[in-house]
Structure formats: C-alpha cells, structure tokens
C-alpha cells in the first residue's frame, strides 16, 4: 500500500495553503500602509495653524 497520490496531495495542499496565506498577509500589510499614507497626506484638524 503506497498511495503516493495522497501523499503528494497532502504536501502540495500544505505548501500551497501556507504560501497563499503568507502572500495574502503581505498584500494586506501593503494595502493598509498605502491607505494610511494616502490618508496621512491630508491635513488633520489639529494640524491647522
């Protein structure tokens, strides 16, 4: 009993899921930073001279 297909599928699913999660986290971080920079460029009420 070897069932290499199940073994391959298990390792592939693990690798792909982890890669997808890490990629999604980096994308989420970049999006948050971009939006923060974009909002930060607009003067706050407290910044008024």
């Amino acid at each position, binding site marked *: 009993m070897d069932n290499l297909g199940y*073994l391959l599928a298990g*390792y592939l699913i693990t690798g792909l899921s982890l890669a997808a999660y890490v990629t999604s*986290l980096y994308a989420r971080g970049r999006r948050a930073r971009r939006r923060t920079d974009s909002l930060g460029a607009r003067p706050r009420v407290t910044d008024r001279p």
Partner: protein
Amino acid sequence: MSSAERALGKLTARRGERVLGWLTLGALVVTALFALVISPREAVQGNVFRLIYVHVPSAWLAYLAFTVVLIGSIAYLVTRKIRWDRMAAASAEIGVLFTALTIVIGSLWAKPVWGTYWTWDPRLTATAIMLLIYLGYLAVRKLPDDPAKRARWAAVVGIVGFVDIPIVHLSVRWWRGLHQAPARLLGVPKMAPLMGVALMIAVVAFTILYLYLMALRMRIGRAEARLLQEALAPRLEPAGRAVGQDVTSEAPARG
C-alpha cells in the same frame, strides 16, 4: 510595559520578522528532507504514513494557537490593553488555518488507511467542532463596530471556546474510535527512532513557522489599527474646513 510585552515587541519587530522568516524556511526544508527522504517507509501503510509529519505538527499548532488565544483573551479582560486582543485575533486566524489543514490532511490519510475520507469518529468530530468554534470567534470579531466591545465579546468566546481543546486531545482516550492514540514524543516513543526524530523536527519547524506567522500577522494588525486611527481623525478640506470622519475614501479631499 511588562517583560512579556517587551519580548513580544522584539519578536514582532521587522528585523526579528526577517530572521524568523529565514529560520522558518530552513527548518521547513530540513523537515521535508527528514519527512520525505531520511525517515523510513512504514511497513504496513507505506509512504502515505509520511503524512504524519505534517498532520501531527498542524494539530499541535492548532492547540498552541488556541492556547495563545486563551492567554490573550484573559490578558485583555484583565488589563484592557488592546494589544492582547490583537494577539488573540492573530493567533485565532492562524489556528483556524492549521485546524483546517489538520482535517484535510487527516482525510487524505484516512482514505487509503480507513477506506473513507470522513467518519464521525470522536476525535474527528471534536476537531470539526473546534474549527467551527474558532470560525465563530473570527465571525464575532466582525460584528460590533466599537473596538472595545469587539475585543470584550471576542475574549469571552476565546475563553469559552478553549473548553473544546482538552476534549479534542483526550477524545481518543475517553471514547473508542478509529483514530489512533497519540504517538508519544517524550519518554519511550512508540515509533521507530528515526521516525520519532523526523516528527520532533517537524514539530519544532512548525512552531518556528507559527512564530513567524504571528510576527507577520501582528504587524498587519498594528498597521490596520493605525489606518483606522488615521481614517477616524477629522480632516481639513483644501479650503480649510473640517470634513469630519471620513472612514472609507482613499481619494483626496473633495474641493
């Protein structure tokens, strides 16, 4: 700031995150080498047994992640510091990912060994319930707009939900089922020594992976908190008039 919070801060700094990233990659390569090449083929199950080197570490990470959710939830309710809530939220997300992986890999292993992808075995059922509980935890975090209320509700679910973890772990001892009892990692191992070494390496590698994912996820949590703070701050339009709380628009101020 407590020493635990300082240690957490160091770990989640960008430099610490990069070091953890490389450590994780190295540990996972060593794990793959031991799991797929060095460790011997199992006499009865054959090569499919090698799924143990991702199935068991994934289950361990789920336990670890949900224990951190419990710690973060209790710490938040005691101190009311939002960073504990952020830690619990990050850990719950990672725990859900690894619980799902545990179930999927377990199903792939079960098919050739038990003849079915799924059966209502006590361990499998308790693990499925664990996944539902923590999906519920993540859903609760989407409900209230008020961050304090959200953190409070989530903390309660994070504490109550933890009750299922010992049930999952001890289900193989309490009830008869198809799932085997846990292989011992400490003391006298029930498996071949090289298999035991490979499993230990995999568990350590996945633990480093957890630390890396936590560092990454907590940095994003902080970035999203800063974004919310910026979005809620009252802004001036070019003419100098305050525009109030614009939380959705990324576009420059309207003229």
